[in-house]
């Protein structure tokens, strides 16, 4: 036993981190396998929502064409399909940090993560890679069902890589809000119920940013809502994402301008979110609230 004493590791090599990542992912898979029924229902739910939008699209297509004619043929179903796919990622970017901090706190894993040589940042990174990759997989299935069962007019654009970049930028921009929301758990002791910041952003983005209908709709009836939609990164990202996916646009002037706006959001909110999150952790370390009790 005593010979092993000097093997104490404060940091792990990249290879060792991969082993930890493997273990973390195995754990997540095992945990999710405990909830097989819930997985089944989420697949059913996906199918149901696709069907809903498919038939809704048939109903509203004539009226909606004027508003979304800038995207491809102006068909509603591919439009909303892309909106839903984007919504999955933007929703994750908004909720993941809070989710990780609250689930590790309530299951008492948080202190464990801190006493591990991988540290909090790597743990967060592993979780993010896993969650985004599995979501991407879900989205691909989503698209396949949309295209082959519901006949959505969607083809892979030549500039698909730009779509991925836009998605990545959107995730970074919205992560700023996600981090601010997570810091509320530690800074303002929002340990249960609804976290107001992510709620406001999610609700605002859900209605205003163009996930299921374009914000231009507000221009006639409630222009103020249109201007509020301009305050959300989702609006710009969705526009760029759809232009690339449906019009095969590359770095056109509009797409470029949307990307620049996303970068502006990143520059402002990502450092702010990171700072607040760090402050939150520091507060927890000061007040002894890294763990639930003891």
């Amino acid at each position: 036993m005593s010979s092993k004493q000097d093997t104490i590791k404060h940091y792990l090599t990249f290879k060792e981190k991969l082993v930890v990542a493997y273990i973390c992912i195995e754990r997540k898979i095992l945990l999710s396998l405990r909830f097989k029924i819930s997985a089944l229902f989420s697949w059913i739910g996906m199918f149901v929502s696709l069907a809903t939008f498919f038939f809704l699209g048939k109903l509203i297509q004539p009226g909606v064409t004027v508003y979304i004619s800038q995207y491809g043929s102006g068909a509603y179903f591919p439009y909303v399909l892309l909106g839903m796919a984007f919504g999955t990622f933007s929703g994750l970017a908004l909720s993941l940090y809070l989710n990780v901090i609250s689930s590790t706190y309530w299951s008492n894993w948080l202190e464990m993560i801190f006493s591990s040589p991988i540290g909090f940042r790597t743990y967060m990174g592993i979780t993010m890679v896993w969650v985004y990759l599995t979501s991407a997989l879900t989205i691909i299935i989503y698209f396949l069902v949309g295209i082959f069962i519901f006949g959505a007019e969607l083809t892979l654009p030549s500039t698909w890589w730009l779509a991925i970049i836009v998605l990545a930028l959107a995730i970074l921009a919205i992560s700023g809000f996600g981090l601010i929301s997570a810091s509320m758990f530690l800074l303002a002791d929002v340990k249960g119920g609804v976290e107001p910041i992510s709620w406001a952003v999610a609700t605002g983005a859900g209605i205003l940013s163009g996930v299921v209908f374009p914000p231009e709709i507000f221009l006639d009836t409630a222009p103020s809502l249109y201007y509020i939609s301009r305050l959300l990164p989702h609006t710009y990202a969705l526009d760029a994402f759809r232009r690339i996916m449906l019009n095969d646009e590359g770095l056109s002037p509009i797409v470029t301008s949307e990307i620049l706006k996303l970068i502006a959001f990143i520059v402002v909110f990502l450092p702010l979110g990171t700072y607040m999150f760090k402050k939150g952790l520091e507060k927890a370390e000061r007040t002894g609230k890294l763990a639930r009790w003891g």
Partner: protein
Amino acid sequence: MIKIKNLVKKYPVVNPNKSLKQRVKETLKLEKKSLLTALDDVSFDVKKGEIFGVLGPNGAGKTTLLKVLAGFLLPERGTVSVNGFDIIRERHEVRTSCNFLRAGGWVIFDYKFKISTMLKYWGVFLGLPLSEAEERINYTLEKVGLLDKKDDYVENLSYGMRQKLNLARCLMTHRPVYLMDEPTTNIDPYSADFIRRFIQTELRREGATTVLATHNLWEAEQVCDRVAILMGGKILTIGTPDDIIRKYALDTAVIQIKPITDDIRKKIKALGFVGNVVPESDLVMVYGKDLPKNIHKILEVCYESKTKITYLDIKKPSLNEVFIQLMRDKNEQ
């Protein structure tokens, strides 16, 4: 190994009746927050390989002290280094130098995982290679006496078993510092004895430095090289259990003297090492320092007074008595 100097830790006091105005003022730092001092100017060192006990009543600050040492709690003042690392600047290194056993059934667990699965995850998470983590599962479970529960689910364990599982987690990795918060609370006497012996033998052999918070003073006396008694965040006394006992408590001699007279009692009391002489029915209780060594002087007094001693018993005080006496004195002040 552990150096603590002028450590002060304060917690904000949660006052639900605080007005919003007051809260805003406090947040803007216009007004000082009311604080509770959990550790008040604590200084001491723990040597490498030492088993150091932290004693004190509920709320004395024992857990707070351990959390500071583990790098989970930032202090307001003072310098603390653990395993040569500063707890503020090198927090990560401090955290990875310590195996921290939390008090009372405080288990990290995932819904419906087997004990062996949990241990594997903890092991890898704490930096062990996968194969070594798998190898150590049986070893640690055997050490804490949970081997037959290997395939049970964590949520089905009893309170004491959860505490044992906690201990097993601590034993998965080799780290130079063990911080143990009440390791034997809720553990049956047999297993508790086993754990104490484990700390005394295995951890000592590893050369590990151990800080042990406990309410069991007998345990502290048995296991610890040195102890500190904390109260209200202050150190009342620090030293080896023997030194503390000698410093604060007197030995008791229960003597039956026939015939007993006031004169003899006075003569005994006049001896330099005797603190007090109290008659109790047909016995006298003599409180004094180092009685085993000094008892012959009492015998001489009796001999000179031509009385007989028919019964004699000398009792050494325990840390328990010292502790209770110290608390009583403090509370009376």
